[in-house]
């Protein structure tokens, strides 16, 4: 995986060959534009530690595919607005894991425009919110008229740890074409008492049990990172519980 610095990303960052990128410290205020040329398969992994605020506009050209892994463990605010447009045969897969806490207020909007036929999008957002935090997942998958044979799925899941924290998940589908597949799912819930009891009945403290459950919840994001970054993420989760 090739490491990039957020500061070095130009106004229009072009992916012109198959490559996997990693941005550590995906933090600060910035607008980014990314273009995938035709027939490129790439991935972009980002780890946010203090907070990101800005728009990320992504254009994926014909028959290209981008997989994004966004690990958000920012202490502060995050307000990230991702919009993707897909040309014919283009695919985007977006994974987000967010741990929101300590009065922070975060929102992630992930929208995809299916502008042509045979396009694919999968939005998979996971969040844990605790300690008076507020976390919002939203965004619209829009399949435009003429984008037949396209598929989209928007999924948002938030686990709310305590009474004072707020989780809102409201992905939206907008469909103007018949011959397509679309689905969405949103779940906001608290950590199950039964699960906690089960783990604690084996001697795990409440904190340890919650850490394991949270870790299990946010873990799918790990697939997008190298081993050393996985360790960092693991420690971040443990340190925050």
């Amino acid at each position, binding site marked *: 995986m090739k490491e990039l610095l957020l500061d070095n990303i130009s106004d229009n960052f072009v992916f012109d060959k198959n490559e996997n990128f990693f941005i550590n410290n995906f933090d600060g205020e910035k607008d980014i534009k990314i273009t995938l040329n035709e027939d490129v398969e790439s991935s972009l992994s980002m780890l946010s530690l203090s907070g990101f605020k800005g728009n990320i506009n992504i254009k994926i050209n014909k028959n290209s595919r981008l997989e994004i892994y966004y690990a958000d463990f920012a202490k502060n605010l995050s307000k990230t607005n991702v919009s993707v447009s897909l040309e014919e045969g283009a695919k985007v897969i977006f994974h987000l894991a967010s741990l929101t806490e300590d009065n922070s207020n975060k929102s992630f909007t992930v929208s995809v425009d299916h502008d042509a036929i045979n396009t694919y999008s999968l939005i998979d957002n996971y969040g844990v919110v605790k300690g008076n935090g507020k976390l919002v997942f939203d965004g619209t998958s829009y399949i435009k008229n003429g984008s037949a044979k396209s598929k989209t799925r928007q999924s948002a899941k938030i686990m709310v740890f305590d009474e004072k924290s707020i989780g809102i998940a409201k992905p939206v589908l907008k469909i103007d074409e018949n011959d397509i597949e679309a689905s969405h799912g949103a779940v906001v819930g608290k950590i199950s*008492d039964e699960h906690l009891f089960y783990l*604690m*009945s*084996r001697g795990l*403290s409440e904190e340890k049990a919650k850490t394991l459950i949270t870790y*299990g919840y946010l873990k799918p994001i790990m697939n997008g990172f190298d081993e050393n970054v996985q360790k960092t993420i693991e420690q971040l989760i443990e340190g925050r519980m």
Partner: protein
Amino acid sequence: MSTLVIKDLCAEVEGKPILKGVNLTLSKGETVALLGPNGHGKSTLLNVLMGHPKYKVTKGEVLLDGKNILEMSTDERSKLGLFLGMQNPSEVPGVINSDFLRAAINEHSEKPVSTYQFYKLLDSATKEVKMPFDLATRGLNEGFSGGEKKRNEILQLLLLNPEIAFLDEIDSGLDVDALQIVADVICKLEDKGMGFLVISHYARLYDLIKPTRAVVMINGRIAVDAGPEVAQRIDKQGYEWIKTELGIEVAKEEKDMNTVSIGSCAVKESIK
């Protein structure tokens, strides 16, 4: 030697009284069969002993070697040497079984086990319960069959080695071979002096693990505390005799069960 003393224990769930004055003593080295018709509070008792948050204790005390465990958190009770094999173990998605088992073992040992030690322990315990090793690497009980979940409970019992174990219908969902395996593990641990309080509706399990006593819970109380032959008698005759001989009216479940006898169900269940 550990002794658990339950005195006049009353508990409710969502405002509904379930346990209505339970008195029971269990010492390490004993295996006590806990019987009783459906819905009379057996699982409630075990859950209360382990500190399930759903149940509220309204009266009474539970002493383990003189210490009141009702004031302790669930994890403290576990560390003190109590174990509950659940009637319906939860599926906890995302939590890897072996991560969970290792964390549990670490809570019960002075210093954390090394990766090598852990895999040795896990390997020998999975072999003992004849559980495919890959179940240990999957999500905790996630997609496990009924019998696999029960084996996973017994695996945890082996790994944590408590002083006193409560087993809630550990035999339900087990095929004949698995029942034998589980019974063998229980017998081995009995020989080592572990104490057991075992709920089952079927004499088959009791025949294998040879309880030292049998108690019957009726209407949220222990109505009978006697020798192990009571388990056989219930298997053959059901619970009606308790009413005639002891004059206890056996409350029936709201959804009409025309007989509280489990004899005939027991036969059907074991043929399946």
